[in-house]
């Protein structure tokens, strides 16, 4: 074993420093992005224009915020399937709050995010304390959120439109030419990188993902960490929903449905192990951009929705085959 690691080292040693330290999966994901852009530019030169790229980053930022939360949970070895309706709920609650005049509009974003965090808390309690598999808990809470929203709206799209603050956050441009959504995503990303690399919580997340038993025996409050992770995921899902409502200027039924699979796919494409414990945040960023570009190019090429779904699914399975399986432990 030591021989193979030495020979691997010697190959690695010839690479420049930033490449040597990078995760091969992250490099692959960025490589795929360039490949997609190259293919796209053969089809139409518009694919390389700054306008198109900024537009793609803006669209990607909604998915990016959701995927950031998903990544925390996946690093633990869990999954959050409540994303679609927690997103929708966040959007609807924020718009509903805006219906209560000035004060309502001011607290619209916190209301939306807090409703998502509350659902995340329920998920977290179920997973960490009641020991129900996360797949089941979050699937169930997704349906509960859906039911609540159908009761609230009567099954129709709510009439409240998104307040100006939310619209500005999603579509405005604080810096000329750079959509605010991209800045928001950058802010969330900076916070996630800090969380993963500099905080005790981040270390605990990786530790639990690698070996929950070892983390517990090290005296880490594993249940609390798992619970907080689900709260973060719920909050970021709802925040993604809020941004999406600002982009579309109103909330709509099932608006979060197209985000579940892409958010999981983005995390996994970025090299995060679906079994937990391994993965870097930059990989998730790459995964988000890759998926958004894939979507965009497929639609420009007139690929029908069904075809896009098939392509996602196949891409995820292929990536799982490449990275998702645990390496031999000995």
């Amino acid at each position, binding site marked *: 074993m030591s021989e193979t690691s030495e020979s691997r080292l010697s190959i690695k040693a010839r690479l420049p420093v930033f490449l040597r330290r990078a995760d091969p999966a992250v490099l692959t994901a960025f490589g795929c992005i360039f490949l997609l852009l190259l293919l796209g530019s053969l089809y139409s030169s518009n694919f390389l224009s700054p306008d198109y790229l900024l537009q793609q980053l803006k669209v990607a930022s909604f998915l990016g915020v959701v995927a950031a939360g998903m990544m925390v949970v996946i690093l633990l070895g869990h999954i959050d399937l409540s994303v679609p309706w927690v997103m929708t709920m966040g959007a609807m609650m924020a718009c509903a709050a805006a219906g209560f005049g000035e004060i309502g509009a001011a607290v619209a974003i916190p209301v939306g995010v807090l409703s998502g965090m509350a659902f995340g808390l329920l998920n977290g309690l179920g997973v960490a304390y009641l020991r129900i598999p996360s797949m089941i808990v979050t699937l169930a809470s997704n349906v509960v959120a859906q039911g609540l929203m159908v009761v609230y709206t009567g099954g129709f799209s709510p009439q409240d439109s998104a307040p100006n603050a939310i619209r500005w956050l999603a579509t405005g441009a604080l810096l000329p030419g750079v959509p605010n959504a991209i800045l928001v995503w950058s802010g969330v990303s900076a916070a996630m990188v800090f969380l993963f690399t500099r*905080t005790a919580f981040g270390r605990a997340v990786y530790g639990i993902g690698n*070996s929950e*038993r*070892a983390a*517990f025996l090290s*005296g*880490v409050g594993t249940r609390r960490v798992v619970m907080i992770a689900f709260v973060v995921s719920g909050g970021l899902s709802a925040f993604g929903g809020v941004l999406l409502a600002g982009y579309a200027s109103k909330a709509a039924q099932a608006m979060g449905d197209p985000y579940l699979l892409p958010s999981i796919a983005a995390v996994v494409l970025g090299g995060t192990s679906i079994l937990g*414990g391994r993965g870097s945040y930059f990989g998730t960023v790459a995964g988000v951009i890759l998926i958004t570009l894939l979507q965009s190019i497929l639609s420009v090429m007139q690929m029908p929705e069904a075809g896009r779904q098939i392509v996602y699914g196949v891409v995820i399975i292929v990536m799982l085959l490449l990275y998702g399986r645990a*390496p031999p*432990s000995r």
Partner: protein
Amino acid sequence: MTTAEIQATSPLFRMEGVSKRYGGVRALENAHLDVEAGHIHAILGENGAGKSTLIKIMAGVVAPDEGRMLLDGQEAVFRSPAAASAAGIACVFQELSLIPDLSVADNIAISNPPCRFGLIDRRAQRAIAEEALARAGAEDIHPRAAVKDLPLSRRQMVEIAKALASRPRILILDEATSALTAGDVAKVFAVLKGLRSEGLALLYISHRMHEIAELADTCTVFRNGRNVASFCAGTRTNGEVVEMMIGREYSNVFPPRQQHSAEPGKAPVLECRNLGWSDRLRDISFSVGEGEVVGLGGLEGQGQRLLLLALFGVLRGTSGSVLIDGQPAAIRSPAEARRPPRSMALIPEDRKTEGLMLPMTVRENLSFAALDRIARGGVIDRGKEEQLIDDMVRLLEIKTAGLDVPVGALSGGNQQKVVIAKWLMREPRIILLNDPTRGIDVGTKQELYRLLRRLAEAGAAIVFYSTDYDELIGCCDRVLVLYDGRVVRELEGDGITERALIASALNVEAAQEGTVA
């Protein structure tokens, strides 16, 4: 029967020069074994003597590296447990292998259910089960009862019936009676003697000397992976058998013991009163003073690991009380155990799954248990982390290519040092060690012994479980010997001898020169 007579008849099963290595550890080396039809053959040996490897090879669970096996004089190679079973070798293991939610009949016929048109023929299956149960002397168990509804001793009987259902010619029993009540043991013995007269060969592994005395026709003693002696039962005394199991091959250099004298009037750092957990730990009371190293001895699986886990707050529903510095301490989780002023540390049993996160870096692993001391407001103080890690790497002389390599790339000894270092970063006062020298090289072992002594001299209270008797003798001020979840003997100072340890581990008096059989 004399040795000459044994050799005159050709054995049913023979093992010749069989060796098995796991990594650098020789589990079995050049082992020979003859198993006769119509005999009960007892296998004796202390922890790690190679008994379980021997059984696994016979049962086709692991393949030997060298040597060969002969069945009826024909060379036999078992590529899987199913192959061994087809050749007529059946095992009854200590850990039950039954599926709790299935019925007794389903379990008995699980490997080879009778089928009609591709479906399980339940009537035939029931008949098979009834016959097997009758053969095992357990007619009282209903074949349709669910296994989970049966008490442990009945389950063990089902296990024996299951082994018999495959109509074996060689039956291996590994600690098969440890879960049984005295009445059941008597019944099982009658059954085993019946099987012997039917011409089966039985291989019987047990730590209970009196059982071997009652049952066995032939005994083989294993030590350090070699068979050191085979003899007819009843020709050696208990004392002689214990001597054979000990042997003397290597000696480790242990640091000198400090003369330990407890300050009068000072409460012990750690005290345990009537600690119990389910029926696996019973009524355990002991105390550990400042600067004292207390060993836990005995055979494997007698409750030593559970005791450490119970002290560290991992087990739920323990009875009795734990006192720290004379104050009652209710410790419900490792997080509570490690918090000052308790400041406990546990070096767990399996460093690969319990002590370390192998894919994570040396740095991340080292600081993992001490993050609350390194971080301010949840944010890691990198300077402080670096400082503490550097100190530890130097103190323990951890050999690593860097702090950012995965800890899994380190050698076993250095991995174990990382596990210990990650706890020393918390400056623990009570250190619990669960067999910390398992699978590490002799040099690192000696470093660990010296470290333990240094920590004790600095005032730590240490509880040290080891499966290696030499370590207990060389390192400990006192040794508690556990048997069946109880402390059966406490040895102190010069009273800690290998002879005393093994005798009390087997729960026999070594002084008593009774014969085997």
